[in-house]
């Protein structure tokens, strides 16, 4: 007989996430129980679309009590516990297969992937699936846990996976502050509880207060010594070294890494962390050895707190970075390529590869090189590279990138307008109201000032974009009559400056070859507009030029690194 599963949740103000969570378990559970602790938003209504078992509970600061209240309404044989900001990922094994395939188990740890910004995530195990039995009820006011009395009945599953997406900073901080207070109270009651200490550290860490977090992690690390506490111990170790590193206490951090690696040779993440510590100190040769070891070690066992990629693309990326710092660009390039091959969604290596190429290869040869190396075959890479070309000052190459990659829908009108083909821009921009500015620039560059003026006047009618319109009208007027046509109101001036500066900036990316002097003329006009407009305009332009000078200086630095030599050589 098929086992029955009930999803039990407690929620408050989770309208933004709840539907995605409930959708993710569709067909995998037989029963859904949602306990609302006082939402002010649509949470309860959304829940009711999925189940009629929605209950209200007056929040009393006790997570366990609330969760156990939810459990009391479950009638299935098994309980699945999720938070609203989590989702169950469809995997090769569903919940029921997991249960029937392991008849001797009564509780299961499931892997939870907690996503960070970027493609990487932390993996750790959470006990979220258990028999609906009176002995399996939550304990603890905060970071409530199910007590496990029979180790032989505990299973560790590789799938299904729980996904945790990062929420907004504000929301997260609100939750963290609430949790901090609850945890402090709980710790006061049970001062020896190392798990609580770990959780307290984690909340401070999440708030970015590593100095506050450090003593908690330190105590948790010292206290969590039993093998069955591995889950917490590994998490505590990694957070502890992270806090030490943040406090520039590199030696201590490295010592801990060394000691723990000796104890758990399979713990890849520590090899990676050690590499990071050395890298930050500029010990690139030594760091590279640690990253090498991490890349060779493979992923750690499931009960180790693990950051995805430390065994592959992250380690490879940093290996490349160290090689670059050691003056071995070719080796660096190879590692970056390996990192990209390991995870195409993790793009920092692509950026470094691009910069390496840019410093060594004439820009116009780069598109061919990238094409030949297969970097334009992937849509996300082609898009990323086109953007990099544009920001590096090569809009023509950005355009070529998209053309070669054959994802024509990725073409940005900016690539055409500033890449030496303004004539092609109007067709590309047809019906695109957001590209009105680019269209006007294209017309100015093509010498069609009357057409440009017509477009600018149309833009004027859109009160939200009047600042832009003023900028364009003045540019045209400067080109025709050599003076400004219209002064913006003080409140609209910022938008004019922003627009003029953007045109100035983009013209300074335009092709500098003979016969393409139109960009220089337009840049001169935009500069003239800014200086004539106002003191703020002058200031913005002067600041911009200062940044450009510094960027050019950095380019020599990046390439040759003998700043002393040319710093005193400025005219």
């Amino acid at each position, binding site marked *: 007989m098929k086992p029955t599963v009930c999803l039990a949740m407690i929620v408050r103000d989770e309208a933004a996430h709840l539907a995605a969570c409930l959708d993710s378990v569709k067909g995998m559970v037989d029963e859904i129980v949602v306990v609302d602790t006082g939402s002010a938003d649509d949470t309860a209504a959304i829940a009711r679309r999925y189940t009629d078992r929605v209950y209200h509970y007056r929040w009393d600061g006790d997570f366990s009590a609330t969760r156990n209240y939810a459990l009391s309404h479950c009638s299935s044989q098994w309980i699945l516990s999720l938070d609203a900001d989590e989702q169950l990922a469809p995997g090769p094994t569903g919940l029921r297969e997991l249960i029937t395939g392991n008849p001797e188990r009564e509780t299961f740890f499931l892997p939870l992937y907690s996503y960070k910004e970027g493609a990487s995530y932390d993996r750790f195990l959470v006990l979220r699936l258990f028999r609906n039995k009176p002995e399996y009820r939550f304990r603890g006011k905060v970071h409530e846990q199910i007590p496990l009395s029979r180790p032989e009945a505990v299973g560790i599953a590789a799938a299904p996976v729980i996904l945790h997406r990062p929420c907004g900073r504000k929301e997260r901080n609100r939750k963290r502050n609430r949790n901090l207070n609850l945890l402090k109270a709980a710790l006061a009651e049970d001062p020896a509880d190392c798990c609580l200490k770990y959780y307290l550290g984690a909340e401070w860490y999440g708030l970015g207060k590593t100095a506050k977090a450090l003593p908690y992690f330190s105590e948790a690390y010292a206290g969590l010594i039993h093998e069955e506490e591995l889950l917490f111990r590994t998490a505590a170790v990694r957070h502890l070294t992270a806090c030490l590193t943040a406090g520039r206490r590199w030696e201590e951090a490295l010592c801990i890494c060394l000691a723990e690696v000796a104890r758990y040779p399979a713990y890849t993440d520590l090899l990676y962390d050690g590499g990071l510590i050395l890298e930050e100190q500029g010990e690139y040769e030594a760091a590279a050895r640690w990253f090498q070891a991490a890349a060779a070690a493979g992923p750690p066992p499931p009960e180790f707190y693990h950051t995805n990629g430390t065994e592959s693309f992250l380690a490879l990326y940093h290996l490349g970075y160290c090689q670059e710092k050691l003056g071995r660009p070719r080796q660096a390039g190879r590692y970056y390529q390996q990192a990209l091959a390991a995870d195409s969604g993790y793009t920092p290596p692509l950026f470094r590869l691009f910069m390496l190429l840019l410093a060594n290869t004439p820009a116009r040869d780069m598109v061919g090189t990238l094409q030949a190396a297969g970097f334009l075959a992937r849509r996300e890479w082609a898009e990323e590279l086109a953007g990099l070309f544009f920001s590096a000052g090569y809009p023509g190459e950005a355009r070529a990138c998209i053309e070669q990659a054959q994802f024509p829908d990725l073409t940005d009108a900016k690539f055409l307008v500033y890449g030496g083909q303004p004539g092609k821009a109007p067709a590309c921009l047809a019906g695109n109201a957001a590209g009105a500015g680019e269209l006007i620039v294209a017309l100015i560059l093509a010498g069609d000032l009357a057409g440009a003026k017509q477009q600018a006047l149309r833009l004027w009618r859109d009160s939200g974009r009047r600042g832009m319109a003023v900028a364009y009208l003045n540019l045209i007027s400067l080109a025709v009559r050599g003076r400004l046509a219209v002064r913006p109101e003080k409140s609209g001036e910022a938008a004019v400056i922003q627009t003029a500066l953007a045109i100035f900036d983009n013209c300074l990316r335009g092709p500098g070859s003979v016969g393409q002097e139109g960009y220089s003329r337009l840049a001169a006009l935009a500069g003239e507009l800014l200086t004539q407009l106002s003191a703020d305009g002058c200031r913005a332009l002067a600041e911009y030029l*200062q940044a450009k000078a510094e960027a050019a200086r950095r380019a020599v630095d990046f390439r*040759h690194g003998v700043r002393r030599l040319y710093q005193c050589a400025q005219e």
Partner: protein
Amino acid sequence: MVSISLCMIARNEEKNLGRCLASVAGAVDEIIVVDTGSTDNTCQIARQYGARVQSFLWNDNFSDARNAALELATGDWVLVLDADEELAGESIPVLRRRVAEAGVEGYFMKIVNYIGGETGTELCPDMVFRLFRNRPGYRFHGLIHEQIADAVASNGLEKCVIAEDLVIVHYGYLDKQLEEKNKKERNLLLARKELALKPDDRALRYHYGVELHRAGQFREAAEELTKAANGLDPRTVYLPKLLRYIVISYYHAQMYEHALHMVDFAAKLFPDYADLYYYGGLASHDCQEYGQAYRFFEQALATPEQSLCYASYAGMRGFRAHHYLGRLAEMFCNEEEALGHYIASLRDNSSFSVALEAIVRILRPREDAAYARQALEKLFDFSSPAAGSLLVHIFFRQAAFPLALQYIEQIAAVRQLPAEMAIWQAICLMQQRRFHEARRILDGFTAEHPLYPMVKWNKLIYFWLQGNRAKVRVVGDELFALGLSEDTGAMVGLVKNSLGKKKAPPVALGDEGVSILMDTAMRGLDFGVGEQVQALFAGLSEQCLSDNAEKIGDLCYRFGHPEFAETYLKIAARQAPQAAAVYYLLAEIKRETGAHFEAEGFYRQAIALDPKQPGYYIKLTGLYETMRRQVLEQATRQYPEIPAFRSLLEEAATQP
């Protein structure tokens, strides 16, 4: 007392032998000369010095001959010299002291080679194993690079000691090098044959590698030398030189990454070896890693006095390193630092004219002759005719005619000018409109003089500069009558037509013609007849003009005609859209004429085409700062009530 036998082999050395044997008088107790077939007075001279002379039938084997001499030696120690060497006088007492030391089996001695390089005579010290105990087991082996050090060292490497105070002076190094160069094919063959017999002999493989290197087979040399170095005892005395040879071989094979890798490796073993850093610098420079190159040359300079076993080349931690540092500093737009290095270079080796030429160039002798002269004379003494003549050459090449003339006159005051320099004097005079004096010199040459065509040509230019169409035609025809090469003839036609009114058919010049054209144009621009010079260029065929447009543009730019320069450089840019240097020049012109936005675009284009040139970025940085200053100036005028602009402007002005 411990006794010493001098053992030599010689053939037809009557010119040298006396000097050699005289130098060891009182230093050795016995002289043995093995003669391998002299037909001159070698044997007699040897006997005069009390030598025991033995004839030996030459069998193409140096080791056999040398061992024959060893067989006859009766002293406790053996000193080996060649006839073109001598023992330095101050080494005689040292020699006695050294052989009395216990526990030593042999000595590496210092050998000072007098060579005539491109920069005059240089001392090139090296070390050689020439003094060892007379034991039956110590015998030479090897067909050409006969050696004995390894046999002695087999009793313990530490028993072979380097004695820098034992000095051999070697004459005729260059002759010997030349001789060996002529024999390089034969040597290579012999070395290969011998190596086939003894494939495990590292020293032999080392010599084979060196022979390959000399024969210009660099990649093979590097491979053989690497094999010889693999697993070699790190105390082996020739290891540093061997590693340097590997570096140089890779460098010449243009395998820069390998060369640099070897530099890294060798520098770990011998961190104070200047030559390694110098060649590391060269390799980095050639692969456009200019910052790295700079650091390498600085490291070379920072090394201490070189140990004898490094056999360091001349200038590695002196004039040569300084010269490259100067060039690199110029690439980073730092003329002051460059000048410092060039001066240091020349101070280290006063005959290193490359450095002098660079110093003169930086002093811009065309712009302020008096200052340039004053600065140069403060730095160096140019009063000797040789030094003055060197300066004349340099000034003349850089079209600094007034200064060239001053030094020519200085030389003329003490001695008769060579004919070519007299013509230069005439050229300098006419460039300064001193026509009569110039004419007098040119007219002093008769038609029989070998330089007469050159004189005639300068007469043509003499009239061309003055715009004398009729005379140009006459002299031109006379030149034709002398019989000219096709190219020179075309050039004469071009000069004639540049003053004419009617349009002549376009002219295509070859390399020779172009070089004469550039020289003529330079003189015209210096003289101030820009229009005539443009007429010269206008007479070129379209193809010829666009092929040489970069050169012409550069010339016009350097001689103060940015407007002409721009025209030609734009032609060049269309002809070769990948030429970064053309865009750089265009940017320089635009910057100097205040067209900042165009300059900006051109600098960026230059960077896009050649991203490794530091100067492009540095100039662009400077341009952005200039543009920023202008914005601040305008803001200060427009908004005098806002003090922030003025203070920013003042701050910007104090920045270097």
